[in-house]
């Protein structure tokens, strides 16, 4: 009859250090792939909204004109689908879990002034070019019409 089969194992445990760590006093170690939270490289974001459409949870909001990207970290389940879908690859899944907060609210990321300025300049440049092209076209048309009228 096998009685007290567990005794040797139990005795061994008496002399072993605890297997648990006393988190949060000792920091936790995460592997490189740990899906902790989503980070954004906001200056590369073009505000296309692909991530918003991909998110199964509806945790994201993007405003292209204001240059903002907003995530509700309490809604996000860190599935990583947005990061996979982003055409500029500016979203990343990185280690480090969401900490508890008192308020459940979104975190807003805004493009830096330089990035906004650069974008505005780019836009102005594009607009100027478009206007130039339009003016050239009109001038050409006018010239053609005049040529016709003369002929």
């Amino acid at each position, binding site marked *: *009859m*096998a*009685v*007290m*089969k*567990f005794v040797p*194992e*139990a005795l061994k*445990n008496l002399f072993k250090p605890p*297997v648990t760590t006393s988190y949060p006093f000792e920091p936790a170690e*995460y*592997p490189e*792939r*740990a*899906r902790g939270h989503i980070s954004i490289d906001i200056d590369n974001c073009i505000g296309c909204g692909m991530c918003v459409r*991909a998110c*199964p949870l509806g945790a994201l909001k993007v405003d292209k004109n204001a240059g903002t990207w907003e995530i509700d970290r309490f809604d996000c*389940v860190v*599935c*990583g*689908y947005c990061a*996979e879908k982003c055409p500029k690859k500016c979203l990343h*899944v990185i280690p480090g879990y969401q900490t508890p907060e008192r308020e459940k609210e979104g975190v807003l990321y805004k493009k830096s002034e330089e990035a906004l300025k650069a974008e505005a300049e780019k836009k102005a440049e594009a607009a100027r070019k478009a206007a130039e092209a339009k003016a050239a076209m009109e001038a050409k048309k006018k010239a053609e019409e005049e040529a016709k009228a003369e002929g």
Partner: protein
Amino acid sequence: MKKRSIVPYGPQHPVLPEPIHLDLVIEDEKIVEAIPSVGFIHRGLENLVQKRDFNQMAYVAERVCGICSFGHGFGYCEAIEDIMDIEVPDRAKYLRTIWFELSRMHSHFLWLGLLADGFGFENLFYQCWRIREKILDVLELTTGGRVIFSVNKVGGVMKDITPEMAGAILDMLASVKKELKAIAPTFTEDYAVKSRLVGVGVLTKQQAHDLGCAGPFARASGIATDMRKLGYAAYGDIDFDVITSNDGDSYARCYVRIREIFQSISIIEQAIEKLPEGELAAAVKGNPKGESFIRIEQPRGEAIYYVSANGSPHLDRMRVRTPTFANLAGLCETLKGADYADVGLLILTIDPCISCTER
């Protein structure tokens, strides 16, 4: 006739990991009949297919359950791949097999711990969960999640297992094997443990067959049913036997699951050895149109996925038949004639997963 009374059991009860309610009709201390009712955690995930597109649903399907999550994501992706005629690359098939078996191992360790807790052996319970932690660490290393992996997508997998990771898995398997060998005799030979398990809640082969039981619960009653033998993913290339026992009691269920952990270790070792090179995922074009019906072996038994698609990004219908649902009828049968003190233990022996059952 003796006096009968009805004792409500659950949904909140110390031995129950998840909410299920049973009305127990008892005579003295013996159960005469058990009437189950579920529905405490219904979330309506199946209905979400009409609101989320079929790629997003892979993430939703995975969250049907926290323990067999890999299998749910996998079964759903298999069903869509079947409809769209996608040939999954070989490497992806092997990776899926490895992750599937790792999740089976952690599920069985969880169960062994709960069983030990069920018969009041707290030290054994902690040992099982301590070993399980190593498997979770490896899963976090390779997939990024401890219980929700998010590595399956329609067409293949999203992450690779590098040679270093494969090495880490093999090291972990060797140490888990050694530690399981040290504690397994406590489950299978210890006098006190055996007195709680042997001959308790017997389900005969005929009963298990008639009630349509699935998984280790059915295998412990002598029915050799294992969907892995259908050869999905890489199981067709891997050598393994269906583990059965003829006793049909709680001891047999424990014994079958312990042997299955050793078997999973061997399956993972074989899969890592044979792991072919190649792509991780096949390209997916267009939307699915048609129907599919997929059977897979979850840690708790056979699960069935039915998907019906209409050619738009949103599916018409998804249906999941989970192993616990199949085993509830068997559970009520085993409870008949049992002692009231064994009820908690018997509920545990089917390895109930109520979240799956209610989706």
